């Protein structure tokens, strides 16, 4: 925990309200997100019990499995869920972004699925894992939409690993990135308690609202795991009543009772999630949120088209050595870029760097915008500026910095004293070698910030091809001629 976060948490305790950690919103919130609150049955890894899903807070769609242990009923439920999710996904692919330059096609929208917490993200992974390898033919066939839903859920879950992606969001994570509460990180994983701190109802303070949220009758767990007391006292009898029912009439009554009981468990979470969506919408979006969302839309466009054409890459159970290394390389570059963009978009995030002496804000007290460096082969425009600052600067001469106001320009530290920093500027000043373009060099009196982060493109690492996997990593993976068999469903642990 950084000092600023610690301070914000202390202030949250003192004031009784969560404190903002950012000045802007760094996560894209779609116009029409799909909120999904899943519940699973205790005792099995991914046995869906129920889900509440939809794009309109006033029109939740409730899906319930009468007997979650019955595989046929389970995949009937998945097919129902697939209808909702796939029609939403296809709806996002209906219009094309006309503003995008170049020849690349990009859809105007992309799916944004919001689950209440990290457990929901894990549930999406498990459900995708258990459905994407099923087939609509052969033994135990399923509805044809089931494997397609599995592919989309797997796609969404994989995107959730990418820093800065907003296609699958865990609401508690998004909120904790934007607000600091007066409770522990573990308690922040409870959506009701977290929202209690951020937006307490009535005249309650954060701690009071969070304490109320601990009552499972008032705020049932946000899933996918259910409250054990609910399991024992309500769910088990309700499931037994459905199983015991002797005729259609009794069964219908028992089902209605089960549905009502499960709906009571999920409805508060549904409302809280939408409340959080509204809260996030009230904050202005950061400058690079749109860029990152465009990246999400690009990835979505490619996958949607590949799936339609039948050229989508398989989603194997595990990555090969080369694929794993390549993916990690990509994730690390995206993480660096996301961290940089947040600092450049948000003075409060940059303040962390200022506190540690890696960045500073100050006033330009001297500038020589026409300074030319003639020491190299070609004379080059290299203006100097002197910035007076009160920040505790801990920079060495030679360090490269960037200003959020002038991203294309590079600044090199020439000298540092206790009161000011002298910077040499290069790039981003137009074509002239004598006169910088107007406004490209800060003038005396300007307030400027310089920090160590840049969102410049980093080239990907170079990796051997799969067939050239070296002996240190087990050599090239064997090519297996695939024949479908009953053993396909066998897992390592079964």
């Amino acid at each position: 925990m950084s000092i600023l976060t610690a301070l914000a948490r202390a202030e949250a305790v003192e004031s009784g309200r969560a404190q903002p950690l950012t000045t802007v919103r760094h996560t894209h919130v779609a116009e029409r997100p799909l909120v999904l609150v899943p519940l699973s049955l205790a005792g099995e890894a991914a046995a869906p019990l129920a889900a509440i899903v939809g794009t309109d807070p006033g029109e939740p769609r409730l899906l319930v499995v009468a007997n979650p242990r019955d595989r046929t009923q389970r995949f009937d439920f998945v097919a129902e869920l697939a209808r909702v999710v796939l029609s939403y996904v296809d709806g996002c692919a209906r219009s094309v972004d006309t503003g995008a330059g170049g020849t690349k096609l990009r859809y105007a929208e992309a799916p944004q699925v919001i689950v209440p917490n990290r457990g929901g993200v894990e549930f999406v992974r498990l459900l995708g894992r258990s459905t994407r390898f099923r087939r609509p033919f052969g033994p135990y066939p399923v509805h044809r939409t089931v494997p397609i839903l599995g592919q989309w859920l797997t796609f969404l879950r994989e995107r959730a690993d990418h820093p800065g992606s907003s296609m699958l969001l865990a609401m508690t994570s998004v909120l904790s990135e934007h607000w600091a509460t007066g409770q522990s990180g573990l308690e922040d994983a409870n959506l009701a308690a977290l929202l209690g701190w951020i937006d307490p109802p009535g005249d309650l303070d954060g701690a009071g609202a969070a304490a109320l949220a601990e009552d499972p009758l008032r705020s049932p767990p946000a899933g996918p795991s259910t409250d054990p007391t609910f399991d024992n006292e309500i769910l088990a009898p309700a499931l037994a009543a459905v199983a015991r029912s002797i005729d259609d009439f009794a069964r219908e009554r028992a089902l209605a009772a089960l549905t009502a009981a499960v709906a009571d468990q999920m409805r508060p979470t549904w409302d809280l999630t939408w409340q959080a969506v509204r809260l996030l919408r009230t904050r202005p979006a950061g400058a690079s949120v749109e860029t990152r969302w465009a990246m999400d839309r690009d990835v979505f466009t490619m996958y949607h088209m590949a799936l339609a054409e039948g050229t989508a890459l398989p989603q194997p159970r595990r990555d090969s050595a080369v694929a794993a290394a390549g993916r990690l390389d990509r994730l690390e570059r995206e993480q660096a870029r996301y961290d940089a963009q947040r600092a450049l978009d948000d003075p409060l995030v940059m303040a962390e760097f200022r506190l540690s002496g890696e960045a500073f804000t100050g006033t330009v007290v001297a500038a020589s915008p026409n300074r030319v460096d003639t020491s190299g082969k070609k004379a080059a425009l290299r203006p100097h500026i002197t910035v007076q600052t009160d920040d505790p600067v801990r920079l060495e001469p030679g360090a490269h910095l960037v200003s959020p106001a002038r991203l294309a320009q590079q600044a090199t530290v020439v000298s540092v004293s206790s009161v000011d920093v002298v910077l040499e500027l290069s790039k981003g000043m137009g074509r002239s070698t004598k006169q910088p373009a107007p406004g490209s060099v800060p003038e005396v009196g300007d307030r400027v910030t310089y920090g160590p982060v840049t969102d410049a493109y980093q080239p990907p690492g170079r990796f051997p091809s799969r067939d050239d996997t070296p002996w240190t990593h087990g050599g090239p993976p064997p090519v297996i001629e695939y024949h479908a068999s009953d053993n396909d469903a066998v897992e390592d642990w079964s």
Partner: protein
Amino acid sequence: MSGVIESILSDFGSAAGRGVVVDSPPGAGKSTLVVRAARTLAEAGERLMVVAQTNEQVDDLIDRLATAAPNLAIGRLSASTYVPAQRVVKHGTVTVSGAVSDMNASAVTIGTAAKWATVTDGSWERAIVDEAYQMRSDMLLRVAGRFSRALFVGDPGQLDPFSVVAVERWAGLSWDPMQSAVAVLLRHNPDLPVHRLPVSWRLPPSAASVVSAAFYPFTPFEAGTKPADRRLEFSARALGGDHGLDATLETARRTGWALHELPARHTVRTDREAVAAIADLVTRLLQRGPVAYSEHAPDGRPVTVDRVAVGAAHRDQVAAIRQALAGTVAADVTVDTANRLQGREYDVTVILHPLSGRRDASAFHLEAGRLCVLASRHRHACVVVARAGIAELLDTHPSAEPVHLNVPVRFPDGWEANQAMLAHLSGDH
């Protein structure tokens, strides 16, 4: 010692097997082995590839190798932004270039793993991978295509490589890219011979036994020196000043270890009192005019600013300590994080305990390698500065990392190693 090296070289030189792994505890002569192996192979007429992890390590290695073998043509593969260090340039036999095609005349080509990963052609029969436990396995994947067989040398007790992204996707896979190069290598090639250097020439007997028991529980090592070989004396008497500081320094002088304990308190990372205590200890130490007597200098050698180091867990702590030392006699003392101190050696070290003043014990702060690096940089004495209450903190935070299938258990466990170190520090000497 030479016996072990002979058998390593004969294993590596033999036609059988694709690799040899050498585990080396702190200060056990790893660099000596690398230089010796490089020299032996190069003198036998073989073109050799050497992979190190940082530019600093590459430069150190080149300096040592060029000094040991003044006629050897050495190539230093480097990025375009690299400014050749003085200790590299002074050897006329070293070619510095960014292109591997300029190295055709070099018997030994040395570069960082990151630079080697950009080389797409050429292949070497043999390679030496230095500090292989600091290397991540995805980096090994990128460079392994360049060589047929390799000698992997490193210290298994030091810090594991890390990633800025937290993804559990590959946990349990034998080629998990987040694991160290040696871990992945040995899981795919379990038959490779693993040698151990059994003697630490750096750590004094007072430290070798403690570090060995805490951090190398199943691969113990000994000190190469006798208790009588190492001695620390102060040439200036303690007059006035803080008695607490002098008592701590006296304990460290006498026993090789000292725990400078501050009152229990939860603090922010840059604990002002702890930082001030470290600054006071270091300046007091230098004012007392310490002299180190060892097998290298039986008549004593003054412990100067460059022979003292301060270690901490976080960069902001390092910055705060540097600021506290600025303007004192200790202004030029090395202050760095555990990551940066790996592989370095000093006479006396002062370290800020990673768990000092903390409210919780996270995996980062419990990592055995972090404490191991900090507690094994010294030839004579190590002073640990910590808030009281670490034992209780450890007891309330047993390691609770998720357990994954197929992931080999790592030894030592950070929690246990921390307890062992603390028990020794707070016990009677």
